[in-house]
């Protein structure tokens, strides 16, 4: 099969096509939506979700799940914001946020890998604990009065794109290359696709999983920093429910919760969709209260259609194999394709 055909069949392309069609569709109704400025607003607005989705993709690709990213975002945002407000150096604030992420990620990873707690349960518990710590740390109050310079970071642009989004974009592409072109990067997908097989060929399954959780939490901490800079204040409930939106973004971007399928580029594309739904509704002159409804419908439709297509592809491949066998010529290429 030619490389071009392979690329065209990849899940990222179908996600990208979906984003393009979605934007064009909305543009057909309201041409203003397709102005460069507005598209850039959509992209820039998705930066927090992009970081969360890319982070969570590490975990999902290894076949686990992490529902603690929202609370991690909240706590790291609260910690860094209080430090910056009280005049500590930015380096300290940023490292504190990253440290928060690191610790939470390690706890998640060790709990899942060493204590063998199912990841949904482990991270659900950690989510509750960390959310509670957010309240304890902030004493239930808002963190406000951040210095202007820190807030200005999120406004700095190159062209129409904020530096934040540019960084996120570059980071996503770098990670994509690392995950698909390097040996260690391929471990993640290998662990998620077939744990037993990965163990047999000597891949450190546990370490890879822990690394996935740590990276996920660190990315959530980065998202927390960006959140602080963009929003300019932190409530104790900051990031509440973001974990579900980040997972939804991954699923929209073609990352399978079964593990092993999907990529961070897909996750980033999904994040754009998730972050733009509200804006799209406004441009279509619907109430943006319908945000969640549309997200739910979109999510269910996409996964169901995907599952049906996959089912058909598997059936078709099997039928091809059968006919090939009966015809007597062994076709080595037909089957085994994961859609």
């Amino acid at each position: 099969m030619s490389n071009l055909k392979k690329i065209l069949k990849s899940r990222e392309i179908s996600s990208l096509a979906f984003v393009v069609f979605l934007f064009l569709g909305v543009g057909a109704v309201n041409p203003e939506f397709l102005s460069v400025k507005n598209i850039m607003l959509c992209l820039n607005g998705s930066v927090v979700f992009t970081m969360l989705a890319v982070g969570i993709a590490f975990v999902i690709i290894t076949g686990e799940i992490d529902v603690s990213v929202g609370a991690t975002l909240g706590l790291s945002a609260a910690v860094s914001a209080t430090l910056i407000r009280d005049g500590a150096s930015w380096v300290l604030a940023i490292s504190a946020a990253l440290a928060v992420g690191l610790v939470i990620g390690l706890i998640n990873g060790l709990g899942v890998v060493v204590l063998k707690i199912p990841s949904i349960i482990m991270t659900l518990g950690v989510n509750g604990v960390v959310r509670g710590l957010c309240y304890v740390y902030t004493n239930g109050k808002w963190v406000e009065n951040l210095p202007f310079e820190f807030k200005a970071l999120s406004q700095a642009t190159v062209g129409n794109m904020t530096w934040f989004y540019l960084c996120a974009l570059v980071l996503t592409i770098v990670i994509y290359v690392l995950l698909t072109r390097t040996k260690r990067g391929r471990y993640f997908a290998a662990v998620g696709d077939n744990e037993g097989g990965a163990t047999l060929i000597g891949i450190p399954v546990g370490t890879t999983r822990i690394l996935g959780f740590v990276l996920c939490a660190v990315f959530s901490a980065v998202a927390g920093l960006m959140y602080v800079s963009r929003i300019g204040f932190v409530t104790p409930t900051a990031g509440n429910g973001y974990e579900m939106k980040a997972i939804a973004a991954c699923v929209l971007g073609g990352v399978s919760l079964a593990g092993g399928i999907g990529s961070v580029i897909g996750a980033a594309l999904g994040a754009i969709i998730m972050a733009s739904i509200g804006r799209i509704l406004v441009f279509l002159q619907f109430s943006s209260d319908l945000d969640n409804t549309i997200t739910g419908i979109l999510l269910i439709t996409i996964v169901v259609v995907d599952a049906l297509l996959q089912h058909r592809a598997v059936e078709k491949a099997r039928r091809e194999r059968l006919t090939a066998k009966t015809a007597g010529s062994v076709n080595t290429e037909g089957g085994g394709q994961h859609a």
Partner: protein
Amino acid sequence: MPNNWFKKKFLRWELFLVALLLLEVTVFGTLNPKFLKPRVLLGSINDFMSICVIALFVTFVLITGGMDIQAGSIVGLTSISIGLMWQDLGMNIWVAAVLSIIIGALCGALSGFFVAYTGVQPMVVTLGGSFLYSGLAIAVTNLSATESYKGISGFPSYFTSFSKYRLFGIPSQVIIFVVLIVISYLLLHKTKYGRSIFLCGVNQNAAEYSGIKTKLIIMSTYVLSGMSASIAGIILTSYLGTAKADFGKELTLPIITAVVLGGTSNLGGRGSVIGTALAALVIGIMRFGLSMAGLNTQYLDIPVGILLIAAVACRTAFGHYKFFSLFRNRLPKQKNK
């Protein structure tokens, strides 16, 4: 062997939960003697009734190997639909309540259908469901004349009083809970339907080949959990006297905690209604007791989260379900085969 029989009968996870429950009552009782008054202790259920009711039936879902994180959003949808049907459509409140149970069942059926018949992971479908139903709840609120943040209130007193009614000093919510425990216990542990739920969780293919309509069974568990969420929504609306779209938003953690703490495996095939009911009480009493002891309610997720992780860690470390095998392994002559 009588020794074995003793172990099988008593040294079980449920016993551990009962011990935990007694410990909690003693600790909170010494911290605050008021806590031990039957009126307070029995009345405390009003605070966590939703968790108890929903967890009972989410157990069914988890036993089939599924996952349900949408129940919380159905509570809000139910509540606001009752309010809307009563206020804006002028229905009788009881008719509205019955209709809202049907709505809950439909919500469950929709998600259950996709889980059972398309093979998408239950976690994804119910995630989509939680977005959809909480979104619908807000959309429904916008149809009504009142602002969404206020909620709909002013229900007739016969509706708001049924959840506060006391029969011989026993709050009606306790009675409802007991009735639901009995129903779900009989359904899960004493009927053919219950056995097929377990079999679906152990091995869906085997169940299918033995003539069980596994897809229908799996779908039905989601319908049941949707209906239980509606019942919780009705009770909550009645108790608080207000219908709001965001009721039940924070219930996912405690519900899943209750089910898993109760000894149900999230991989399916194992679990019990009694365990879930006890675990729901453990969590509820813990939340109630801690807040009575003066802890801010917003901190309550910390102990619940720790409890969840610790319980599951214990169970996986010491063999599922048999917490006491920890002690058994210490005894040299009782080697495991």
